[in-house]
């Protein structure tokens, strides 16, 4: 059975197969291998928090904040169980330790349909989690932080609380059961004795770690479920928050870089004589490409502007011919993907019934081909990293989504051991998956090593270098055939797509793993949806790309949702049915998805007349439903066209079922965020590569959505007591198809490529 071989093959390649493993429950993520470093008067309770005698509380934060609100959401989990005083919560960086490795994101990466719950899937998940405890990653991504740490951080808070109560009981000479704890204070009501957590910390720290403390029930939550404001909001509004290029170690130098315009190309020749004569210039150095990055030249100076001026005066001859991407054309590549599908329907990620027989017996069939381009991340903060290499030690300040991978990449690039590298994680000015790659971090470290003379060097990419040296969302082509019976019921669903695999590419960059085997993320959004097709086959052909590809917010879902929700809309119209009713008929086995669909239709006023646009233009609605990262989202978009046929989205109604809503405000923010991000791509997103060079360079030729183009967004969160699921990415997949479906309703034009353009 191919899937099992893939799973075991992956574990084998990772070197993690062994014998005698047993399930390690979440409570085993309570203690770090090395006790947490503490300051004077500070006690560590579990590996997740430190309490000062004065009551100062530091929660260890192993995930990166890139706007998704994870610092706040995760802190709430621990602080609630701890019964801490929320206003006193501060965050401390996490040391690199296996308890902080992300297990959920890896388990979710296994190629099983979300609805399958067989023994193989469960044991594969356990084995993977065990493997990831040893060789895993402290990765923020995959909309998995809350899901991954839902139990471990709550366990840590509950354990620390239990230790504090025990210490208080011993101090007061009373039974623990007579004590209450709230807002950082323990109270013995009968005697009036009280003690703050700070006063109890040292004594509590001497107690053994309890490993079976019951967690609060939802009725007991004081923080979880509340729309608490994000903890770093004030500093971000004041401009004092620290991003990648805000680190200011003493003696800081600045580097400006140019990388070979052909992706993966090399430097042939450099003449820096004129550059080095300019004021403030220290050095001009060449660097190879690391971790999938491209080689280039760096000018190092005392100020950023001096560095930029020096780079302009540096004469560089590039070697573009020998790169694997030399001559690469994105247009030709996409045409090639379509041609591949002529003869290869790909690895079947999902199969049910006999789809070919069902198609033969259909009263009516319809087919279509869809296409999506490469996309850039365009984080608001261009790539940047500050590094210092001195006396056999390296320190980097990096906006990274994986600090332990950053450490490994820097060590490898500098020829150091991992223990000789320290990574300080800054805030990220946007991530979207770009900061899962280590190229710019290894590059900055090498620049500091070669040209810093022991001083820290801050490398700042220009927007042009950033846009032209990205790890792009892969292009994809997808073909569908559906069969309907005489009554318009969907009988058969056949889908084959082709495109590069960002997971294979990324694992190859991070771990040197070979690019083999099926990869679920290449087909996610196509094979794993809640519709109950009577007969179906969903396949995908992985076609490697010389142009670098990586994870882009919602990954495979980012194009498969557009393809799938557009084609199911085509099927609905071919069947002469209402698009909501047509989908609902396929969701009888998925009450949660059906509830989301119906709630979105209600919120969006489906079936009621659509108000015209402010300028009087006719408007129409489109709907899309999509499951990703464990959550189900449906969106209704109201769309009109300007006189010049520009697409205008006036309102988006969004409903999400994400299980327990830890912080409804953060969830709403993520829906707004995902929608605007996805809409920007739907209307404007494209990266064209000709002769191995990216054509776009800045916001004039790769526009992004501006405030006057932003729709009104209304969000509803389905009440749920299920464990929490992902929120950072699920808002993005449905928007492109919702808008495209609205355009069809408005104009009769079916748009099958992105970005959307009405003829």
């Amino acid at each position, binding site marked *: 059975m191919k899937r099992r071989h893939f799973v075991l093959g992956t574990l084998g390649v990772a070197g993690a197969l062994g014998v005698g493993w047993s399930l390690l429950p979440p409570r085993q993520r309570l203690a770090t291998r090395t006790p947490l470093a503490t300051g004077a008067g500070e006690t560590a309770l579990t590996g997740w928090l430190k309490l000062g005698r004065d009551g100062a509380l530091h929660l260890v934060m192993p995930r990166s*904040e890139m*706007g*998704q*609100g994870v610092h706040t959401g995760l802190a709430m989990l621990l602080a609630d169980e701890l019964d801490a005083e929320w206003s006193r919560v501060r965050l401390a960086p996490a040391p690199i330790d296996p308890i902080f490795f992300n297990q959920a994101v890896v388990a979710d990466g296994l190629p099983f349909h979300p609805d399958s719950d067989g023994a193989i899937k469960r044991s594969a998940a356990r084995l993977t989690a065990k493997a990831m405890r040893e060789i895993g990653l402290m990765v923020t991504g995959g909309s998995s932080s809350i899901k991954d740490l839902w139990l471990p951080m709550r366990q840590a808070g509950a354990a620390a609380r239990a230790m504090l109560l025990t210490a208080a009981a011993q101090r007061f000479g009373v039974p623990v059961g007579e004590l209450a704890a709230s807002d950082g204070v323990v109270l013995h009501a009968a005697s009036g004795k009280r003690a703050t957590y700070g006063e109890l910390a040292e004594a509590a720290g001497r107690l053994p770690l309890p490993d079976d403390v019951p967690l609060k029930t939802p009725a007991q939550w004081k923080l979880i479920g509340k729309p608490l*404001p*994000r903890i*770093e*909001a*004030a*500093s*971000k*509004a*004041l*401009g*004092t928050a*620290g*991003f990648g*290029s805000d680190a*200011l170690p003493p003696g800081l130098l*600045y580097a400006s870089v140019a990388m070979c315009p052909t992706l993966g190309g090399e430097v042939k020749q450099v003449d820096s004589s004129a550059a080095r004569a300019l*004021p403030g210039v220290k050095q001009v150095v060449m660097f190879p490409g690391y971790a999938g990055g491209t080689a280039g030249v760096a000018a190092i100076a*005392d*100020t*950023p*502007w*001096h560095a*930029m001026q020096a780079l302009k005066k540096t004469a560089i001859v590039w070697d573009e011919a020998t790169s694997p991407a030399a001559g690469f054309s994105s247009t030709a590549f996409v045409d090639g993907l379509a041609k591949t599908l002529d003869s290869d329907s790909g690895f079947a990620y999902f199969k049910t019934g006999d789809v070919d027989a069902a198609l033969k017996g259909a009263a009516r069939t319809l087919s279509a081909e869809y296409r999506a381009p490469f996309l850039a991340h*365009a*984080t*608001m*903060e*261009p790539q940047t990293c500050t590094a210092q290499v001195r006396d056999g030690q390296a320190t980097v300040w990096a906006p990274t989504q994986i600090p332990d991978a950053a450490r490994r990449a820097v060590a490898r690039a500098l020829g150091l051991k991992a223990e000789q590298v320290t990574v300080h994680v800054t*805030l*990220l*000015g*946007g991530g*979207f998956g770009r900061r899962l790659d280590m190229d710019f971090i290894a590059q900055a470290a090498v620049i500091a090593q070669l040209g810093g003379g022991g001083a820290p060097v801050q490398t*700042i990419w*220009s*927007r*042009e270098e950033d846009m032209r040296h990205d790890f792009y969302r892969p292009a994809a082509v997808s073909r569908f055939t559906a069969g309907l019976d005489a009554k318009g019921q969907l009988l058969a669903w056949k889908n084959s797509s082709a495109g590069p695999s960002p997971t294979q590419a990324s694992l190859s960059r991070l771990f040197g793993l070979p690019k083999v085997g099926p990869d679920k993320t290449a087909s996610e959004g196509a094979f794993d949806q809640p519709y109950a097709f009577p007969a179906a086959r969903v396949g995908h052909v992985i076609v490697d790309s010389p142009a670098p590809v990586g994870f882009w917010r919602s990954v495979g879902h980012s194009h498969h949702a557009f393809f799938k929700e557009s084609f199911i809309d085509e099927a609905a119209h071919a069947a002469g049915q209402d698009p909501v009713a047509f989908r609902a008929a396929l969701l009888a086995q998925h009450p949660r998805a059906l509830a989301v669909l119906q709630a979105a239709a209600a919120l969006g006023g489906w079936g009621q007349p659509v108000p015209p646009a402010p300028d009087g233009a006719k408007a129409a609605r489109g709907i899309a439903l999509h499951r990703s990262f464990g959550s189900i989202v449906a969106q209704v978009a109201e769309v009109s066209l300007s006189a010049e046929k520009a697409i205008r989205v006036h309102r988006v109604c969004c409903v999400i079922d994400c299980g327990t809503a830890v912080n409804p*405000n953060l969830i709403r*923010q993520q829906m*707004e*965020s*995902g*929608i*605007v*991000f996805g809409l*920007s791509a739907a209307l404007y997103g494209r990266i064209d590569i000709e002769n191995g060079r990216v054509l776009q360079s*800045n*916001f*004039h030729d790769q526009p*992004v*959505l*501006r*405030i*006057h183009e*932003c729709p009104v*967004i209304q969000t509803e969160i389905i009440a749920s007591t299920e464990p929490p699921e992902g929120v950072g990415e699920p808002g993005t997949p449905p928007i492109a198809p919702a808008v495209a479906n609205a355009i069809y309703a408005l104009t009769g034009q079916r748009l099958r490529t992105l970005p959307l353009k009405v003829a």
Partner: protein
Amino acid sequence: MSTTLTINGKSTAVQAEPETPVLWLLRGELKMTGTKFGCGMGLCGACTVLVDGQPVRSCVTPVAAVEGKALTTVEGLQALDARVAGAVRAAWLKLDVVQCGYCQSGQVVAATALLKANPAPSDADIDTALAGNLCRCGTYPRIRAAIHAAAVALKDIPA
């Protein structure tokens, strides 16, 4: 080459060459990191500062152009106009506008300038004033709401 600029109300001696963009004077020589770099072409607004109260893209504005003028960065909004800056900040926090926050210095500077010039902006006024400030995280709906909320609050705060 050195000159003296008025930055956030203070007379500041600077060494930078006259063609140095104000953004890089601020972040480089002066280590004032509140103003952010986003595109270098005046397209994204992350570098927005005020010159004599007007929003300006500091990445394409040379030092020479602000000599003799009042330059205000995000760090100086409070000193410039505590009433408006305070209302903007309070609205930003109340409505939880920020996400990653990287564009927010520019957004807050532009919003403050708007409200100083136009105490009751319409949606169209807001869109026009903030059209030059990109956000990749989708904070636009909350920026609009926060500017309206600040305008409402300012009606009750004596000028």
